[in-house]
């Protein structure tokens, strides 16, 4: 990422000597829900006082049982949804509403079906009014990065689910955001493709020095990808614990990693935090 701010004040909010790219500050969200008979309204606390940071060049995962509001939180960070209280700060500036400083990767790739792969990657730049030559250049560069430069002229329906998700990633990265927000991007893929893409994401992240906030319900995925994991509890959604993942730098592949005792330990710990029967621990 080429965005540079010399805002030294931001550094130092955490002991690490890294810039805070995203600050989530006491964010709360309430949904109004009509009762079954339609007469009364009840308030559902979806998120309460959520606070955490994402630092430069870091992957942070949001994990929690379904209904804990992790996708809601991610949509709030992107500006697709409004929050009731608290603040979202990107590069130290409070933001409200969508912006070019954040790139979003959707759960289903959500490519525009009438556009070629390259044209999809160019979409964000096109909206910003970037010169066609420059954005074509940039799109090609990103297609190369995600390993799909051969597929530039193909349409989404001619691409596999995994390829579509790579294009979705390239599209979000094309606008050179401060932070990438990824909403369960691999959950719709088959297990093998998912592992390939997880590995790819780590490679791309190392190459491009990207900062990522990643929502998932897959414990293994969270541990494998993240530097830190924010575990959310449900009803109301709140931060239960923020866990540092010790496998820094070069990681072995997931199947190898899965066998390691540290991995098992973290997995067990998160699983107990969530306490959800639908996510049984590996044995």
């Amino acid at each position, binding site marked *: 990422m080429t965005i540079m701010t010399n805002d030294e004040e931001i550094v130092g909010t955490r002991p690490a000597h890294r810039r805070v790219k995203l600050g989530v500050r006491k964010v709360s969200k309430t949904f109004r829900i009509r009762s079954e008979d339609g007469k009364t309204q009840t308030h559902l606390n979806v998120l309460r006082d959520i606070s955490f940071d994402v630092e430069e060049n870091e992957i942070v995962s949001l994990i929690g049982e379904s209904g804990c509001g992790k996708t809601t939180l991610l949509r709030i960070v*992107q*500006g*697709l949804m409004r929050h009731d209280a608290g603040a979202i700060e990107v590069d130290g500036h409070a933001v409200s*509403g*969508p*912006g*070019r400083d954040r790139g*979003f990767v*959707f759960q*289903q790739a*959500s490519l*525009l*079906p*009438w556009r070629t792969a390259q044209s999809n990657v160019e*979409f*964000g730049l*096109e*909206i910003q009014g970037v010169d066609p030559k420059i954005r074509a250049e940039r799109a090609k560069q990103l297609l190369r990065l995600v390993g799909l430069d051969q597929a530039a002229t193909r*349409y*989404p*329906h001619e691409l596999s689910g995994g390829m579509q998700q790579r294009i979705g990633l390239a599209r979000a990265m094309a*606008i050179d955001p401060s932070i990438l927000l990824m909403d369960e991007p691999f959950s719709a893929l088959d297990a093998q493709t998912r592992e390939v893409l997880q590995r790819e994401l780590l490679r791309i992240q190392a190459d491009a020095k990207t900062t990522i906030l990643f929502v998932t319900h897959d414990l293994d995925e969270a541990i494998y990808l993240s530097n830190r994991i924010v575990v959310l509890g449900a009803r109301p959604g709140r931060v239960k614990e923020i866990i540092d993942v010790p496998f820094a730098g070069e990681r072995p592949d997931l199947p190898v990693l899965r066998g390691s005792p540290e991995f098992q330990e973290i997995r067990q710990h998160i699983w107990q935090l969530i306490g959800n029967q639908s996510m049984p621990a590996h044995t």
Partner: protein
Amino acid sequence: MKQSTMTQTTEATLATAPDTEVEELVLNKPTRRYWAVRMISIFTVLLAWEVLGRQVDPLFIAWPTQIGAAAIDMIHSGELVGAFLESMKTLTLGFVLASIVGIALGLVIGRYRYVDASTDWLVNALYATPLVAITPLVILWFGLGFQAKLFIVFILAVFPVLINTASGVRNVAPHLVDVGVAFAANERTIFLKIILPAAVPFMMTGIRLGVGRAIIGMVVAEFFTAINGLGALIIKYGNQFETAAMFVPILSLMLMGVVYTAIAMRFERWVAPWRFTDSD
């Protein structure tokens, strides 16, 4: 096996096909086989029509060879070509107008809730009304000429285009709109770059549905005005009890409908290929 009539060669192809095809062609075979069956079916029906038709009083029915002869006569006299072009002119112009107006109004109705709420009752009522019923009134307004026919074709074809376009705009997948919002596009850009292209396949469906209604409108209008066009020819030869000659414009209309619908479907696939990946 090497005899040269059509049915026998097709059967021969069918019989030998499994052995002679290379493996990669296997996928194509069913389609070819269906086409062969289709040809046999067409040939059989025509043959049966020819044989049975000759048994009946020629006032009530004509048979294929007789119709063919009548067609050749009518082509030589220039009558058929003239009527065909006249009908095509009405149909094409009325239909193009209906498509343009239908798409324009459909976009406005689909986009603005208030416009929708104030017009949907009228649109639905008019769409449900068999509008050929107002033909006598239209003739009062415009006379027996080209304008009356044009209006009827237009009014019949415009509603399917309009309704489908509006529903296309209204039913754009929310996750696609989200893409625009997430990339901080303004409302106008979202409409132009996401909602509009997403609605194009719906417009094409409306156009395809409109074709059939446009042809009906054209024929009915020509029945009433009975001055020119294929509809007028049908009335003319019907009144003269020349059944074979009457079948010629009927079959021309059939051809026109088939060709127009096929073109519309091709166009639909060409414009929105992603909608047809499952059926391909």
